[in-house]
């Protein structure tokens, strides 16, 4: 699924940079654990690079709103959908679009912070 920025590798990189910056200020033992944490993040980063993206339910849902969306990358579907909404192409289907947006945003929240969802959606 195409999530908001930062992309997954950047999430890992952000934590890595912070630990890197923190390390010199830590005591000997904590500095060692910080180094180990960086080592683990680097492994995760490399493993992530080998992953192939998998289409999710949300990708398929959004693809239905864009002509040829099934064959497009999720980020391209989102870009095209934004362009189409802006041009008024979906103005006669705003109720259906609203439902699709609710489902799309809930899918993002389910990853960012699931406890934020209304109890009916968890």
């Amino acid at each position, binding site marked *: 699924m195409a*999530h*908001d*920025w*930062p992309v997954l590798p*950047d*999430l890992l990189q*952000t*934590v890595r*940079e*912070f630990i890197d910056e923190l390390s010199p200020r830590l005591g000997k033992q904590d500095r060692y654990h910080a180094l180990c944490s960086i080592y683990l993040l680097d492994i995760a980063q490399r493993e992530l690079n080998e992953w192939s993206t998998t289409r999710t339910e949300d990708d398929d849902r*959004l693809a239905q709103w864009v002509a040829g969306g099934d064959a497009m990358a999720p*980020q391209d579907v*989102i*870009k095209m*959908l*934004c362009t189409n*909404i*802006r041009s*008024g192409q979906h*103005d006669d289907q*705003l109720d259906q*679009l*609203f439902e699709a*947006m*609710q489902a*799309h*945003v*809930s899918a*993002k*929240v389910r*990853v*960012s*912070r699931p406890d*934020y*969802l*209304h109890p009916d959606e968890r």
Partner: protein
Amino acid sequence: MTTPLNAVSDSDSLDAELSAVVAHLGEALQRRLGNAIEISNIDVATLGGSNRTVLFDVRGAGQRRRLVLRQETISMAYSPFLPSATQYAVLSAAYRHGMPVPEPIFELEPVDELGQGYVVAAVAGESLPKRLLSGTQFATARARYLKQAGAMLAKLHGIDVAEFAVLETVPDTLDALGAQIGYYDGYGEPHPALEFAFRWLEKSQPPANARVPLHGDFRNGNMLVGEEGIRALLDWECAHIGDPLEDFGWFCTRSWRFGAVDRPAGGFGSRETLYRAYEEAGGRTIDREAARWWEIFGLMRWALYNIMQIVGHVNGTRRSPAFAACGRNTALIEYEMLMTMAGKFD
């Protein structure tokens, strides 16, 4: 030529950059207040998205005052924030008209070598929303908060817009919704839910109301509060001219209730309490329905501000875990926005 300044830090963690800032600040103060002054008790309050806030005591010439340096540290494209010089002009106008704002002391000049920014008087008080909403010492302040906030807005909105002429060309003044779409386009991260919000807001926009000076970031968290009540209204970097309901919509968005979601007015109480306080203090009659449109507008705008933070992180302007979190938190605000549109959230 100024003499070396006796700058005393209370923290060992003052880094080299901050030490240089303090040295230049001392010279800036000496140029204006005389060589006999010294600064001490230095504290860095925040290093926010675009400002550094340094608190310090200045002593000399028989007086001692606590002052605050607001220094612009980062300039970003498509920033919705006013340049420091405009902020200072707005703050000065508000102060002249008796608004409870920190006293403006001076604006930085090129000779100060501190970039853009200004110095104001410090005001003691608490601004952390959760403490204000739950601290037992703030029980009286909580009881008075909405009445004071309503009266404060009535006073601000009653000032002639000609006093804030510097705001006439601000994008948010020219077209509030169009300005947000412009910022969003500049950030370059596509968000279908926000595109939907733009269409929804365009199609349901209430008729234009009066044009008044707006604070633009009027909310729980931007006021310094003592046990007796609100002492000062801070953070004027989003000021512009527009519909008075915009300040109400922003204040009442769900995000600014800090968990007290059943008390829509900043977590302190009901919308009606705030509206009535405004009307009783001489403010215009509030169109209750139109004010709700401005709450949706406010949630859309808050989502955009989070995107602005992640853009600064992704493009390397300033990286931090907090800014990275803003990027993924955008979805939470979009969620609140859609749930509010659907009537599932109040």
